[in-house]
């Protein structure tokens, strides 16, 4: 056997042998545009979102969070629509991850309001006592460094000019520092006074998280944007006035809803549910619809997660505590 006494030949032969599989499964797909399609519906990251993404990478968030929802029934129920290849056209590097110590984040954008993210990143256990996520409050104490932002978007070829990058940064700063910013209370609480007028690393990370999956959600209208309850007069709560159901609903509310609406439902990140003000209607059917399909601005849809029965029980509980 000649090759076993010829090291250089042996090396060349080894290289040929390893390159066969490499060519077929790696190089050929790389040359095919269909491997990573580009869609006009999926937009590149803005300058601030990109900085947030870089912080996500720097802190190694991908070690615990995946960003790809697989086409499996329970996974779609838990996270939302399964991931499509065109969503990742601007992802360099990809961040699909390999381990779910924390939940998947590919559909987290728009699921919760900004205030949810500020509070959760600042102190995860203040919202979920059993969470093992590290606290990232220190990100709110670091101003965002934008000195390389234009260089970065140029390398990535997002096609923004220098002025546009500056405008995106200024616009986002105006948004989060405005007195009308919906997350102002939480942001002010966790941001030191001297940085409240500037962009922090926390602001950029929240911007990035809110971008994840947003383009796909915009396409799939109706699945998450809520709307009026269909034929609300005809839909009846099967547990109306049922004491046992109200008690069960109370437990479910504590487990799933209290984190945003408060233990006593008087509102924190989400609105007060005890008063008589209902933005989307206050009949049982309206409340059911709000819980089931979600509402814009950060009310997630609970339809597939909780199922009809449990949602009706929560509705019964909410009705039982409301001002008469």
């Amino acid at each position, binding site marked *: 056997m000649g090759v076993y*006494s010829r090291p250089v030949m042996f090396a060349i032969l080894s290289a040929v042998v390893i390159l066969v599989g490499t060519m077929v499964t790696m190089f050929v797909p790389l040359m095919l545009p269909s491997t*990573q399609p580009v869609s006009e519906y999926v937009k590149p990251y803005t300058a601030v979102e990109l900085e947030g993404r870089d912080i996500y990478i720097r802190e190694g968030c991908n070690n615990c969070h995946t960003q790809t929802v697989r086409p499996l029934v329970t996974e779609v129920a838990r996270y939302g629509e399964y991931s499509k290849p065109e969503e990742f056209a601007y992802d*360099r590097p990809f961040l699909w991850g390999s381990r779910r110590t924390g939940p998947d984040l590919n559909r987290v954008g728009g699921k919760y309001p900004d205030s949810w993210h500020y509070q959760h990143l600042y102190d995860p256990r203040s919202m979920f006592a059993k969470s*093992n996520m590290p606290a990232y409050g220190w990100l709110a104490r670091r101003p965002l460094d934008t000195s390389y932002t234009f260089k970065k978007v140029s390398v990535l070829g997002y096609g923004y000019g220098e002025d546009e990058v500056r405008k995106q940064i200024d616009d986002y700063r105006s948004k989060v520092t405005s007195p009308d910013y919906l997350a102002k209370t939480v942001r002010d609480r966790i941001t030191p006074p001297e940085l409240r007028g500037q962009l922090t690393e926390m602001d950029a990370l929240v911007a990035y998280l809110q971008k994840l999956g947003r383009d796909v959600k915009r396409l799939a209208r109706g699945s998450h944007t809520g709307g009026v309850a269909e034929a609300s007069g005809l839909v009846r709560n099967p547990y109306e006035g049922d004491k046992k159901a109200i008690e069960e609903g109370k437990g479910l509310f504590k487990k799933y809803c209290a984190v945003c609406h408060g233990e006593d439902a008087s509102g924190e990140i989400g609105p007060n549910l005890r008063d008589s003000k209902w933005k989307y209607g206050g009949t049982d059917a309206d409340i059911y619809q709000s819980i089931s399909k979600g509402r814009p601005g950060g009310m997630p849809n609970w339809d597939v997660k909780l199922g009809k029965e449990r949602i009706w029980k929560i509705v019964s509980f909410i009705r039982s505590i409301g001002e008469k």
Partner: protein
Amino acid sequence: MEERGYEYNVVKGFAYSALFWLIIGLLVGLWIAAEMFLPQLNLTPWLAFGRLRVVHTNGLAFGFTLAAIFSCTYYILQRLTRTPLALPKLARFHLWLFNAAIALAALSLFAGMNTSKEYAELEWPLDLVVVVMWVIFAINVFATLIKRRERQMYISLWYIIAMTVTVAVLYIVNNLEVPANLFKSYSAYAGANDANVQWWYGHNAVGFVFTVPILAMFYYFLPKSTNLPIYSHRLSIIAFWSLIFGYLWTGAHHLMLTPLPEWIQTVAIAFSIFLIAPSWGSVINGYYTMRGNWDQMRTNYLVKFFIFGITFYGLQTIQGPTQGLRTLTAFFHYTDWVVGHVHMGTMGWVTMIISASFYYMIPRIMNRELYSIKMANLHFWLILVGQLLYTVTLWIAGIQQGAMWKATNPDGSLTYSFLEVVAAMYPYWKIRFLGGVVYFVGIVVFIYNLLMTVRSPLAEQPKPEPSKA
């Protein structure tokens, strides 16, 4: 004896480096294992899990394992070619550069400079250093092979050549990136392509760092330790070529049910199943080598390490392809099961073979007797029990985790919130930490035993070497 001129200082230097990075990597591992159930341990940004996990994986895969590979390669290479290292000064520079690179790698990862691509996290300036270091290593390997005085190249040398060539290709292709500044770069590939290139790399980093060179050690040190020839030369030829051919097709089994084109996933499954054959070729070769001499399991302390090591390799190479099947990956992927799987390979197979190789090699190059065989046995049992406690716990945890994620009520809604599943994992994570502690104690015994060996007086007579290679 042709001891004269053999370059053993660099073998020693890499062995010490391996042990040093082993301790560091394991300590970081223990810390992040504790963070899983004690999140308060995320004390500072650089002690947070997201940064530390990368220090752990890089420190052990590259600091410990690569150093051990370099050490054993430089030893095996000289013995099997019956030729001193062609460029000893270059090898000493290699040792120095290697440790500088690993130290800088650890510091930069602590500081959050990382590309996020698993096992290829180093930023571009360090990538360049790694490439230079690998080229230096390759030059020495081939220069020595060309000068060799033993015509035929033994099995271990095939595996060393395959590693030298393949790691270079993998590392360079996966790390192609465009710098934005000195500390930040972006991958040359986007989305699904980046994922495919990454796992082509990631899986083969396992193949050509955690498998191929460890097999080189196994094929060399098992016969040397037992004075038994390898059972079948033909089997080792078939196993070698089919292993290095099959490995490169399988990366996408890490990306099952993702947006990567389905045909790449299917091809990966097929070749993963195929890989059981060459993997078990080496397992069977190992077992049959011991045929009729199984009493050495009792009488020769080294044999336990080799046989248990190759057994974990055998289990690993069945578990891997199985959990890659579509139905099973849907259940197991992203759970702790996979963490258990990886650690059987690293804590079982890789570390056991490296341990035995060091026990064989270090007393010989130092011209000393091993300090304590009893202690080596204690080391064996501690790392075995620690590893099993660790892996079996995580397999059970993974099954429960997967089942809870998938559990549904009769109306199709989800039974458990994500957080309920996290809460259910805490007992397992505590037991896993305990397994890690037992394992760590075993490693401390190992290192103490080697240090005492080195510090013991010189042996009266040079250790006899069987004449054949």
